[in-house]
């Protein structure tokens, strides 16, 4: 019934826009509902079940994963059908000002509105020969009216388009793998059931966030994932560092959330609607002023900085490694930290117009991303904890994504999100596998030479590392290269740039690539090569982990290899065809009214070769340092004894700065927090004691004095005197009555009665 209505709707709309539809797309709300249900079921029944609730979580996630795949399939189907059914015409974004809302009365249900498509078509490509077909496919939007108040309606609903479908796939896939991994990793844990409950809740929250139709839901989902992150980081909260880390994560996110709320409110008031589609359309069509959009974008950038760990609010991410490793893999590598990226990608119209990405060579988003990727990359060099290295690596890669969004390379950023999720999760789970056998995360103290003991883990870790480094033909190369292409830049590399000329971003990106390779080589050496430095406390040699740990690792490493081929650049190997290239971008990048007209950089072979060269040189440098020099020193050594930092003062100082994490934590805790706690609080206390309290005391004293006066003079003498007097009067009257009137003489009583009756009768006669 709904389908025919939709098709009718589609046919009644003029030419080029198609409303996507499909059963899976429309009931995509099932996907977060299942983990939410499993959360409650695990809480109530988990402890009694055979596998302590893990089976509920895994089942729910498995079904959600299958549904996500079906959604993806259906969406791809929709895009393909839309392409085949229409001519290949090209329009240059006309009809910007015209908007047309189809009426919703054609639909049967009162509550469910299907967002009508506007008949504006904005194409993602400006020139011919691009890989995009000229048909707009609108997202599937389902909306329920949640409540109405003050003339405004608040909806809750889902919005499903290519980006959503991709995120659903990523979240459910990695969550499922993490679930399976966790059954081995946290088995025997003190709060096993609650762990799985929170994993389900997190999955549900993230999926809900991804499916948000309006920015209110986005805010709700954002906060929910923050809460779940807090709960899961502090899973072993009995140890104080863990609960401290959880608090730090939550509170740092809170700082950014101020930006989120302010930004969202600005967007609501300027666009007049909570709906993401409406806001984007309003931004793109210049209905909102550019300065308003800029302010909103800046506020939202603050939110992205905290949630996605950008410099300077990134300090929580490394500390968040205090949580269990599967949690780090799921939340702080693949899904939650990309919430900020997703939010920017969703509201890209706002950012694109706000920062004027198309026309400039510098904007705040690109700057933040660039600084983050290099800054975090440097920090990764001085970490001993393997998870912390991976955490800084995550921060650095998130910097890549933010930078890509900042320069207008939308597809590149989202594609990097996609590939990064897989190989970073693989890296984290691999680190977890290693630590599971040596019971520690410290590379220098407990690891080394794990290659012999854990071959599968080694292989998968290596594959994911190569993907991360961006060495072809693995996934990281394709996505990172696309980002570099998108920055535009010198044009030296033979390709034309994307939306602007972000030279700084390009430079930082290339430096970051080199850094990534170098520190990851360090990690590989310290963990898997050399001599085993650890102590297994009499358990014998460390051994490979069980199937439930290694199989997810294998799956993720396969994805790390294969995922890159989803978005091969146009012109790769076969000239200018669109058959099997750019598949990812084709399906994920929205071609719709709510997406701005960004231009894509043309891929250039020379840039690809140059970046590969930089990556390999980074590997070579680090390999030379470690594999040659350090190994020469001794098999069990972890660094050169007389290295650069001991010889050169500047290097030593730099090393200290890095070790102190740029003194940011010092700034936050000691200077800002303690500064507020100490002097300001003292000043407030002083003014309170001396100023306000003194005043209050004085008032009190005066009140006491006047009260005493009142008591003594007035109350005691006057008031009590009157009261006593009345008492005496009554007493006297009573005495009189007793002695005169009530003497017991019956005749007297009778006389009084009769007299009274006479008088009353007389009065009655006279007056009535």
């Amino acid at each position: 019934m709904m389908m025919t209505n939709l098709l009718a709707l589609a046919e009644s709309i003029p030419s080029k826009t198609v409303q996507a539809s499909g059963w899976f797309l429309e009931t995509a709300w099932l996907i977060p509902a299942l983990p939410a249900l499993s959360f409650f079921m695990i809480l109530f029944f988990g402890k009694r079940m055979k596998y302590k609730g893990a089976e509920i979580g895994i089942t729910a996630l498995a079904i959600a994963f299958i549904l996500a795949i079906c959604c993806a399939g259906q969406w791809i189907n929709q895009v393909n059908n839309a392409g085949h059914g229409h001519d290949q015409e090209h329009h240059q974004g006309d009809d910007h000002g015209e908007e047309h809302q189809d009426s919703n009365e054609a639909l049967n249900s009162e509550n469910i509105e299907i967002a009508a498509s506007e008949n504006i078509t904005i194409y993602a490509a400006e020139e011919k020969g691009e890989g995009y077909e000229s048909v707009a496919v609108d997202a599937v939007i389902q909306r329920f009216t949640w409540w109405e108040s003050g003339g405004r309606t608040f909806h809750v609903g889902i919005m499903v388009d290519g980006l959503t479908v991709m995120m659903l796939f990523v979240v459910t896939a990695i969550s499922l793998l993490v679930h399976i991994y966790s059954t081995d990793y946290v088995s025997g844990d003190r709060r096993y059931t609650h762990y799985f409950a929170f994993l389900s809740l997190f999955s549900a929250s993230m999926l809900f966030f991804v499916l948000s139709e309006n920015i209110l839901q986005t805010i709700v989902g954002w906060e929910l994932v923050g809460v779940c992150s807090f709960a899961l980081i502090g899973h072993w909260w009995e140890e104080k560092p863990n609960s401290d880390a959880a608090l730090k994560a939550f509170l740092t996110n809170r700082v950014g959330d101020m930006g989120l709320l302010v930004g969202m409110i600005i967007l609501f008031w300027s666009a007049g609607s909570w709906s993401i589609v409406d806001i984007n359309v309003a931004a793109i069509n210049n209905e909102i002023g550019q300065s308003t959009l800029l302010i909103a974008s800046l506020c939202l950038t603050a939110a992205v900085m905290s949630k996605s760990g950008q410099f300077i609010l990134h300090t929580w991410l490394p500390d968040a490694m205090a949580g269990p490793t599967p949690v780090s893999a799921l939340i702080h590598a693949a899904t939650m930290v990309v919430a900020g990226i997703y939010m920017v990608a969703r509201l890209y119209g706002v950012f694109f117009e706000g920062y004027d990405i198309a026309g400039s060579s510098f904007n705040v988003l690109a700057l933040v991303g660039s600084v983050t990727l290099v800054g975090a990359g440097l920090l990764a060099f001085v970490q001993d904890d393997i998870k912390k290295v991976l955490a800084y690596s995550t921060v650095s890669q998130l910097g890549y994504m933010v930078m890509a969004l900042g320069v207008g390379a939308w597809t590149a950023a989202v594609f990097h999100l996609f590939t990064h999720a897989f190989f970073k999760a693989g890296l984290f789970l691999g680190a977890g596998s290693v630590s599971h056998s040596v019971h520690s995360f410290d590379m220098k103290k407990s690891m080394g030479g794990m290659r012999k003991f854990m071959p599968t883990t080694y292989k998968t870790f290596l594959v994911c590392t190569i993907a991360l480094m961006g060495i072809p033909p693995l996934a990281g190369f394709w996505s990172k290269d696309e980002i570099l292409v998108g920055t535009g830049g010198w044009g030296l590399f033979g390709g034309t740039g994307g939306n602007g000329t972000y030279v700084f971003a390009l430079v930082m990106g290339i430096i970051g690539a080199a850094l990534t390779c170098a520190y990851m080589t360090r990690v590989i050496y310290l963990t898997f090569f050399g001599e085993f430095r650890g102590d297994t406390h009499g358990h014998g040699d460390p051994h490979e982990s069980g199937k439930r740990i290694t199989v997810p690792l294998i799956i993720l490493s396969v994805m790390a290899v294969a995922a890159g081929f989803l978005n091969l650049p146009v012109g790769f190997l076969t000239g200018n065809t669109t058959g099997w290239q750019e598949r990812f971008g084709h399906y994920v990048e929205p071609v719709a009214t709510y997406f701005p007209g960004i231009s894509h950089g043309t891929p250039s072979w020379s840039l690809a070769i140059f970046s590969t060269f930089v990556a390999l040189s980074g590997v070579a440098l680090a390999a030379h340092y470690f594999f040659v020099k350090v190994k020469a020193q001794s098999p069990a050594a972890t660094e050169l004894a007389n290295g650069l930092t001991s010889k050169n003062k500047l290097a030593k100082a730099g090393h200290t700065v890095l070790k102190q994490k740029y003194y940011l934590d010092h700034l936050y805790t000691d200077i800002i927090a303690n500064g507020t706690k100490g002097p300001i609080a003292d000043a407030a206390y002083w003014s309170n004691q001396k100023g306000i309290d003194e005043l209050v005391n004085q008032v009190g004293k005066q009140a006491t004095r006047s009260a005493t006066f009142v008591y003594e003079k007035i109350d005691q003498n006057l008031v009590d005197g009157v009261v006593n007097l009345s008492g005496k009067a009554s007493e006297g009257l009573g005495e009189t009555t007793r002695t005169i009137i009530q003497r017991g003489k019956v005749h007297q009583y009778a006389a009084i009665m009769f007299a009274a009756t006479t008088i009353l009768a007389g009065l009655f006669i006279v007056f009535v």
Partner: protein
Amino acid sequence: MSIAQYLLLSSVLFCIGIYGVLSRKNGVMVLMSIELILNAVNINLVAFSALTDNIAGEVFALFVIAIAAAEVGVGLAIVLLIFRNKQNVDLSEIDQMKG
């Protein structure tokens, strides 16, 4: 005949009865004075009954007679008890209810 003369007669008897109640010390005398009052009331009732041709007045007078008889019976019983206790029926000596 006018009704007024009956009513005036009744009121005269009533007032004489009041005087008797208030000025007699002997208990039995007080009871007799009370009888005077009740009879005055009876005349009043029957006179009005004749005036308004409503039999209720006479019926009421009948009931008053009955009650008066009962009241005299009980009253004399009390007077006898007083006499038994105090050997006289001087009402002015009964003042134990004084305040």
